[in-house]
């Protein structure tokens, strides 16, 4: 997995934020989706399927296909492509339906 920055140069971006992805720091810019930020950091896989454990990532990129599900701030099954980045966001790639974090 490449952990560089796949963003195009010369584009004006919003303020820089940092997210924690599976415990590692990922840099993003306001206005990006979690999916875009993960992809830019070289992460193409968001989850493993529940039955066979195959890798899944971004397919439609517009909130329809349900393939890019990640756990965001302890809530499983958020669509990475529809979730805007925010400073301090905690993202976990998930296996199957993922796991609840926090209480209850």
């Amino acid at each position, binding site marked *: 997995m490449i952990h560089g920055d796949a963003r195009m140069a010369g584009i004006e971006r919003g303020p820089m934020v940092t997210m924690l992805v599976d415990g590692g720091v990922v840099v993003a810019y306001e206005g990006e989706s979690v999916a875009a930020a993960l992809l830019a950091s070289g992460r193409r896989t968001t989850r493993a399927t529940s039955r066979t454990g195959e890798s899944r990532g971004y397919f439609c990129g517009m909130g329809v296909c349900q393939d890019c599900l990640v756990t965001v701030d302890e*809530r*499983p*099954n958020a669509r990475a492509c529809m979730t805007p980045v925010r400073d301090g966001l905690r993202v976990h790639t998930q296996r*199957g*339906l*993922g*796991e*609840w974090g926090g209480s*209850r």
Partner: protein
Amino acid sequence: MRLPAADVVVIGGGVIGTAAAYYLAGEGTRVTLVERRGIGQEASGANVGLVTLFSGHSLDEPDPGPLYELTRASIDAYETFGADLGVDIEYEQCGGVVFAETEEKLAVIRRAYEGYAKHGVPVEWLDPRGVRECEPAFWSERILGGAFCPVNGQVNPLLLCRAFARGARRRGARIMLGVTAHNVYHGNGRVRAVCTSEGDIPCEFVVNAAGAWAAEVGDMVGQRLPVVPARGQILLTEPLPRFIHRVVSGAEPSARQTRRGNVIIGSTVENAGYDKGVTVDTIAHFAAGAVPRFPRLAGVSVIRSWAGLRPATPDHMPIIELMEEPAGLCLAVGHSRRGICYAAGTGRVVADLIAGRPPSLALDAFRLSRFAEAAA
């Protein structure tokens, strides 16, 4: 057109009809089941899937009685059903919590708890903290207490209906889908044949298992059945990691989490005639009831909501009886909102009655004549 004769024609492919066909076919009886649509397409496919020994009904029946026996018999069957048939019906005896948020409800549950515990039914009394410990996903500020029954559980109702149908077919029953029963021919005091959209089926016995449409079948033999449709709406969320470990009932809405992870929330009992629509106010009611009690549901996607028409009787109890007039007509109707809980027990006693055996459960409480007596 004339179709092959059968010993028994079952009208209705819901959970009651398929269960009856399954147990009848197990006797070597030639069974033909006719179903207008598909297996489990009406109320049997539009319910939460609770299998509760101690639940809403036990509050109507504060001591274990005939409804308890019917449920007990069904639970015994579901416990071994998957292994018997080699299919998974997602039956899980996960235990269930019945809770109270009002003093009135608490008193009702308490009375049923005492009645059931006295008869040796496993039920534990819970204080508010006990409710929370029993099901950590559930909480309500207004909780006053409740009861836990470890025998309560859940099943996938659609898989259950299909398993009964498949099991019946494997035992030699003929299952005819998309076939409507238009008439029940009777003469000299006996049923003779069922007239269907595909032709006539000569038979010795007819089982009326037509659910919310049972009264129409009753009309075919001039029999008035006090069975009316009662709409029940339910709501299904996206699959979520397991967090609800018990079935939770006692106030609307009840909830359980399926094997796949979806949360099913329901249900209502409404008089809406034969309208199977889903209404905004009910969905709002479910959301307002479920989200505060299951905080993790906030923000979760709803993927489906639908409604079914349950066969309701005035006393919410089924009618299970082999009639003398016309002879050969067996009623297995009016299971109200608890067909899934009563199905196997009902199927077994229908097979008993038609085989001429004394039924394995006491059926006096389920006679049709109780309504005439009540009216007199």
